[in-house]
């Protein structure tokens, strides 16, 4: 049986134990219809030309996680943000781990999607936001919605600054032969509020795992969301990350995506504006080797005047790794005085590494400032020679230049301990110790 058929036929089993009269369930059933109709995207879809899921979906996966897998804290502690106190919502093979988590309902809600979906006190929030931010027609999102049950739920009420960052971590234990995970996160940040979130997906053992994740983020007036995606997984793990953000006036939503490891990663990051004077920031650093593949597909839809968006993605590719960047900026006729900037710079360290970069600007307003730039190049030999004449060995010189290249993305990381950690990860990846943090 094809995996698609399995997903559809297993739905009845999934429904057991769920309240079928619930409006959420109607949403799920509708989503399944969309997925059934559309199926997995193929290379014939324009948006998936450079990334093929075919090899992934030819395998079979377990879609119902076994419950009660326990992991010792000492085995996963290194994946947490050390030296910073955080809220934690931790899952193992898709199942919530109360032991590893640190949730709260004190002044803000950092808890489980399953709780939000079932408890009456969250009903209004769920009805207002669940599957309302996502583009419901996208087939992978529809697939996620149809099985949406667990994930992180965050609600920051008005005029509240979340004092601790929130870590959302999905571990896969490797106890299943092959695992297909579909976490669903909803984050609502009310007026004048602030939150910082770190999300990662991590396999603990080499085993095939595919995560098809959907995160919906609603940013109300004057609110600020600072979101970090750490993608540094094993080469047996693949991730399709679908993140949708709706922003209201005077809000700022920033997403940093660090793609440092994994088999296949696709980041669908979509921004929608519902007010003026919005700032949207999208940044990414991708460093790959082996046969890894990372595809960043971004959309910023400027549908209101006086808004600003900044996209800055850097990629460093060695061996046979592949990078894709597809950056879409849409500026509606009404969205005058839009400032939209996009930059995608890549370095290829080996002849066999490839990058496909495609800026896609569709501008219907006449009084706007939009720019895009894309470079694909090799390491600057002259600069390398300059560093080497100062006694810096070739390998360190290359690392230093790689750091320098990625630096303007790193420097906007607001959490010092996270910045240090990413610096360390990049240094380890490059096999050097530069002795300082940039």
């Amino acid at each position, binding site marked *: 049986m094809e995996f698609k058929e399995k997903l559809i036929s297993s739905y009845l089993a999934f429904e057991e134990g769920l309240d079928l009269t619930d409006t959420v369930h109607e949403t799920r059933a509708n989503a399944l219809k969309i997925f059934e109709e559309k199926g997995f995207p193929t290379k014939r879809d324009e948006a998936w030309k450079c990334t093929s899921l075919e090899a992934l979906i030819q395998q079979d996966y377990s879609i119902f996680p076994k419950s009660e897998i326990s992991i010792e804290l000492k085995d996963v502690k290194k994946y947490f943000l050390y030296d910073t106190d955080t809220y934690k919502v931790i899952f193992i093979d898709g199942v919530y781990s109360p032991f590893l988590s640190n949730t709260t309902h004190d002044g803000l809600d950092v808890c489980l999607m399953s709780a939000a979906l079932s408890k009456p006190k969250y009903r209004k929030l769920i009805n207002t936001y669940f599957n309302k931010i996502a583009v419901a027609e996208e087939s992978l999102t529809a697939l996620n919605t149809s099985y949406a049950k667990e994930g992180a739920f965050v609600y920051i009420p008005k005029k509240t600054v979340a004092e601790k960052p929130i870590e959302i971590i999905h571990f896969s234990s490797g106890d299943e032969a092959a695992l297909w995970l579909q976490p669903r996160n909803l984050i609502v940040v009310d007026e004048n509020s602030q939150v910082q979130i770190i999300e990662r997906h991590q396999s603990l053992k080499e085993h095939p795992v595919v995560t098809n994740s959907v995160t919906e983020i609603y940013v109300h007036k004057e609110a600020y969301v600072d979101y970090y995606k750490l993608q540094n997984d094993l080469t047996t793990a693949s991730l399709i990350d679908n993140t949708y953000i709706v922003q209201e006036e005077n809000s700022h939503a920033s997403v940093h995506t660090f793609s440092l490891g994994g088999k296949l990663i696709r980041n669908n990051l979509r921004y929608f504006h519902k007010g003026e004077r919005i700032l949207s920031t999208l940044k990414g650093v991708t460093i790959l080797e082996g046969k890894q593949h990372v595809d960043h597909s971004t959309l910023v839809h400027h549908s209101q005047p006086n808004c600003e968006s900044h996209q800055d993605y850097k990629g460093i590719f060695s061996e046979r790794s592949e990078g894709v960047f597809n950056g879409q900026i849409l500026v509606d006729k009404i969205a005058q005085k839009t400032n939209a900037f996009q930059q995608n710079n890549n370095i290829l360290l080996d002849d066999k590494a490839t990058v496909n970069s495609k800026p896609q600007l569709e501008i219907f307003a006449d009084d706007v400032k939009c720019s895009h730039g894309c470079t694909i190049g090799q390491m*600057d*030999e*002259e*600069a390398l*020679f*300059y*560093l*080497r*004449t*100062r*006694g*810096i*060995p*070739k390998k*360190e*010189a290359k690392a*230093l*230049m790689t*750091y*320098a*290249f*990625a*630096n*303007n993305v790193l420097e906007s990381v607001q959490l010092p301990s996270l910045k240090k950690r990413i610096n360390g990860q990049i240094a380890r990846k490059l096999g050097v110790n*530069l*002795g*300082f943090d*940039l």
Partner: protein
Amino acid sequence: MLTIENLHAQVEGKAILKGIDLDVKAGEVHAIMGPNGSGKSTLSSVVAGNEDYEVTQGKILLKGNDLAELDAEERAHLGIFLSFQYPVEIPGVTVTNFIKTAINANRKAKGLEDMPASTLLKKIREKAKLLDIDSKFLSRSLNEGFSGGEKKRNEIFQMAMLEPSLAILDETDSGLDIDALKIVANGVNKLKGKDNAVVVITHYQRLLDYIVPDFVHVLFDGKIVKSGTKELAHELEAKGYDWIKELA
């Protein structure tokens, strides 16, 4: 210090250096002058170990060590320093972090521990003062947005920090106004001593009023066609390079 014997070098199959002999002793300052395209910058690149150039004949020895098989960084560890005519901009790396990395890389090559931060900072302050460099300048990205004068001053600052045995200054005077030229020359003069040597590569005699050479060589078409003392530089200034071409 530096001995060059019958050096021939080419780039992309084109011969640039066609038999250079040069002997620089510790404590000496040599100037290499010549018209554009005579091979001055090639000579400095070849000595520093630029892999774009291929040495086809001859030898370069530093303190008796044959440099033929050594990479640029290994030559630096032996004590060669090249001040670039066009220093490369490296956004994202501050001057201080760059110098720290360079110093510790050189120490590591000598089997020494990293320089303690306090010693390093003291040294940075001392050398920055010598070259009239503002401390704000040290936290800027290396050469990024620097004026011509700032770039050259930064080169000499690096030289001061690294304390090389042999400093090659490639067109250090280009792009400098007279005040900057004096500061740079003054820096070089303070750094030179009986144990190190300086090779100044320049088109014009101007810099040699401030860094006074013991010997002047004239390079033309890949060969040294005339050598002399500092008076030769004045002669070149007065007569231009045309008469040199007849010597070749």
